[in-house]
Structures are given as structure tokens and as C-alpha cells.
């Protein structure tokens, strides 16, 4: 028990990532408000970013910038952070696209609730 608690405390970024991912997934799957679904997606992606960046981190490591003053320092891995920049750009574009779709849906249905949209679907389509 003590050992497990120790592991959790030492690896807290991963633990946090798992909890964030679960919160995000739960929000996506259970909330019917479209904005909340989108928020859930964003939380979930942040969890994955955290997982990646934490994987490349070394506690007490130097920042990976070429510098001749401390050449023997332990540098943290810059690659996961660089990859996550790409991930953030992708996540921004997904968010923008989803927001545009929500605006379109709101204009045709007058609501941002997925359940009400499902109820109104037939009448609006028939028009």
C-alpha cells in the first residue's frame, strides 16, 4: 500500500494526466451540450500533452538550449515539447472548426443541446 502511494506521489504528472483524460472522456460522452463536449475534447488533449511533456522531463535538468557555460549538464528532452507544439496547433484547428460547426447548428436549430437537436431533427429537415 505504502509502495503504491509512493509510486503515485513520485509519478504525479502521469497520475494527473490519467485523471484529466478521464474527466475529458466522461465530459465528451455524457454531456449533451455541444460546447461542453468540445471542452471535454480539449481537456482530453491537454491530458495527452501533459503525458508527453512529463515523459520528456528530467527533474533538475537544464533547459535544452545550446550554451557553452555548462556543457556537462543533464538536458531535458526537448523533442516531446516540440511535438506537443504540433499537437496544440492541431487542437486549436479542431476547436476552431468545431466552433464554426456549432455556430452553424445553432443557426439552423436554435439550440446547442445535442438531445434537443436530435428531437428537432425531423421537423427541421423536412422544411
Amino acid at each position, binding site marked *: 500500500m505504502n509502495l503504491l502511494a509512493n509510486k503515485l506521489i513520485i509519478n504525479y504528472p502521469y497520475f494527473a494526466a490519467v485523471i484529466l483524460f478521464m474527466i475529458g472522456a466522461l465530459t465528451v460522452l455524457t454531456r449533451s451540450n455541444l460546447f461542453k463536449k468540445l471542452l471535454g*475534447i480539449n481537456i*482530453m488533449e491537454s491530458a495527452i500533452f501533459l503525458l508527453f511533456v512529463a*515523459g520528456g522531463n528530467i527533474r533538475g535538468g537544464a533547459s535544452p538550449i545550446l550554451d557553452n557555460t555548462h556543457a556537462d549538464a543533464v538536458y531535458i528532452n526537448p523533442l516531446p515539447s516540440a511535438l506537443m507544439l504540433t499537437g496544440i496547433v*492541431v487542437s486549436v484547428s479542431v476547436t476552431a472548426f468545431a466552433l464554426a*460547426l456549432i455556430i*452553424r447548428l445553432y443557426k439552423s436549430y436554435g439550440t446547442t443541446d445535442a438531445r434537443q437537436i436530435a428531437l428537432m431533427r425531423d421537423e*427541421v429537415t423536412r422544411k
Partner: protein
Amino acid sequence: MTDSFTANLPVYVIIAPLFVAIVLPTFARLKRLVQGLVLLVGVLGVAGTGYLAYMVLSKEGFPMIYSMGGWPAPWGIELVVGNLGAFFLLVVSGVSLPVALFSRDNLTVEVGGKERVARFYVFYLLLVGALSGMALTHDLFNVYVLVEVATLSCCALVSSRKHPRAAEAAFNYLILATLGSALVMGGIGFIYMITGHLNMGFASQEINRIWQHNPHVVWLAFSFMLVGFGVKSALFPLHIWLPDAHSTAPSPASAILSGLAVKGYMICLLKVLYNVFGHSLMQEFAVHRIMVLAGTIAILAGSISAMTQDDLKRRLAFSTVAQVGYIILGFGIVNTKGLAGTLFYLASHAVIKSLLFLSAGSIIAVTGKKKVSELAGIGRKMPITMATFTIASLSLIGIPLFSGFIGKWHLLVGSMEAGNFLPTAVIIIGSVLCAAYLLPVIRVAYFESAPQEDWKDPGFSQKLALIVLAAATVILGVVPGPFLELATRAATDLLMR
């Protein structure tokens, strides 16, 4: 000069559609020019990939490895033109060209407005570029980026029709697909954490060396990858976005979504499973059994749901769910025959499903009828369209002399060789079910009396596209020769690691 051209051909194949997609919005008004450029890119793509496939087949120093920016493997991004890459490239370019040809005529009506046509083509070309990239890339993070580009352009294609249903379907697709790509990225993260490599070859060596030390992380990576790509390629319980998205999109978009986009994700899954984890690790973790089981359920459930649909496009969309089951099932049959059959089936399904969606689309565009039960007598009014539909249906069912048969036959032989009789039985039952949901359409179209309406076959370019695709499925069925050879070599490569 020619040497440098050949050496850079893999990059040209990927960036040509992307470049054209980038500059298309600047002359969106000139519809003729836009369509001409798209067709030109398609033709050049077919020529380039054909040349690459020819070189791969004649083995002139292949697999060809291309390092982006001149950075060698563990640091840089690699493109590998192996047998699998050349095979899928050929499928992508071969199917996307007829679809572009088909979309020339009535796209303006389908997307609702002249100014939206260029937007459709932008996303179409982005999708084609991303799929070509998926075929060649040998880097895990690159896979993620390409998957994301493909997903966004798929969503944009679905939403390109000016209809509230389309926006709704696109939103549901976007949410679930982003869930899937988050999972894929997580899986890549786990692989990177235990191996320290993103290059598939190096990651594979490392993961096979050290997997005993962290079996749980390998498990997590496996499951994240399976579920992530499962959502994107519409594996049965995760398929709920597909029927809406594929039936509300404009017909050329449904054709390319059902025919190619889904296949692209499955090629990525195949690469991750066999090139990164390797078949020995798959068997160690019994992943191949999971895939056979998932495929079985998908075939049965997809076919039965397809039978209950009266809307023609929805029926075809559910049929895609069932056919995805075949391919996933085939990925779990770990021998050369089975994998070669799966790859061949993947290619022939790409051709068949785009043909089915295109002919259904032209029927719907001409008659305005969407229900199967309303299609009485279409076969006599629109002979060419319905004939191509029939050819595609027979091929999908697996009648000899059509391409679907060759794929199913090899799959069947492969599963018997593997000594697993569940897939053998399911493949045969699936064919019967497939006949049960496609033959009624043909019966209604040919053997019921036609109403007194002036329905005609569509215009020349649409007919040409339909005939090209129908000829492709017949030719692949009669002389599968070089194509099957390429698939077999790709399967051998996959099993070598």
C-alpha cells in the same frame, strides 16, 4: 536530371496535391481552372504512383528510403517506398482520379453553391495528400499529423453540404474522431516513452528488446492504438458516427470517405501493429485474436444493420461497417496468404465502395429518390449506372471473376492455414448476408415496372468515371497478377520483422 526526379518522386506524390490545395482558394472563381487542376493532379498522381509501383515490382533498389531534409533515420523523418507503400499509393491515386472526374458535373448542386466547389476540392486534395503520406511515412508522429489532417478534411467534406443534418453529422464525427486521435497520440506517447524512438524501424527493434520489462505499458500502447484507430476506421461498436457522416455527405465525398479515408486509417493501424510491435509481440499479447473477434462481430452486426436500412446510402454506409470487419479480421490472420488477401480485399473494397456510392449518388441526383423501395425500374431507365452498380454488388458479394472474390478467397485460404475456423465460417456467412442486402436493390431496379418518368443516364464524365471503376474491379478480378504480387510481397515484408 531524371535521376533526381525519380529520387524525389515520393515527395512529389505527397506534396503535389497539398500544394494545389493550398493555392486553390486564390482562384476559386474560375471553376473550370479549379476542376482542370484537380484532374491534372489526379492524372499526374496516377502516373507517378504507377511508375513507383513499377519500380518496386521490378526491384530497382527498393525499398527506397527517403530522408526528409537529408537527416538520417533516428533523427529525421523517413519516407519508405516499400511494397506496402506502393500498393496503397496505387489504390489512393487510382480511386481518387475517377472520383474527381465524377465530381465535375453536378458538384455545384450537391454542395449548394458555386463558391463552395473550390472549398470542396481544397479538402479533397488535402485528404488525398494526407492519404498518400500515410502510405509512405515511416515515422510515428508523422502518422499522427497525417491522421489529423485527414480527419479534419473528412469532417470538412462531410459538412460541405449546406444542410443542418450535414453539420450535425460532421460535428459528431469530429468529436469522436478527435477522441480517437487523442488515443492514437497517447499510444504513440507510450511507445516513445519506453523506446525513445519515433522512427518505426528503431522503435520496433527497441520494443522487441525491452518489452518484458514493461509489459503493462506495451499493453496500454496496444489498446490505445486499437481503440484509437478503431474509432477512426469505424470498427463495429465504435462505428456510430459513420452511417450519418457517410450518408449525408455529397456523393463524391461519400465515395472517397468510404472508399479511401477509412482504409488510410487501417493502413496506419497495420503499420503500427506489424512494423512497430511486430507479429511475435502481437501473438504474445493475443492481439490477433482480439482483432479476429472484433472483425467477426463487425461483419455480422454491420450486415444485419445494413439489411434493415431502406435508405440506399445508409445501407451502403452500414455495408462499409461490415467490410471494415473483414479487413480487421484479416489483420488478425498472421500468415502471408491471409494478409495478402486482406490487402487485396482492402484495395478492391476501395474500388467497389466508391463505385457503389458514385452510382447511388447519380441515381439519387437524377431521380431524387433515396429509398431502395422507390427505385423500381431504374435498371431500364439508367442502364449504365445500374449495370455498374450491379457489377460492384456482385464483386462485393464475392462472385468469381470479380475482384472481391480474389481477396475473399485468399483470406479464406489464409484463415484455414492458420487453423482458425471461426473466420472461415464468418467470411462465408458474411458473403451470404452481403447478398441479402445488395441483391434486393438489383431486383427492385430490374424486375419491377418502371414509372413514366424521363430519367436518363448522367453526363459523359460521370459515366466515364463509373465505367473506369467498374472496369477496374473486373480487370482486378480476371487478371489480378501484378497487383496480387505486390500485395503478397507487402504481406511477406510485414511478417518479416
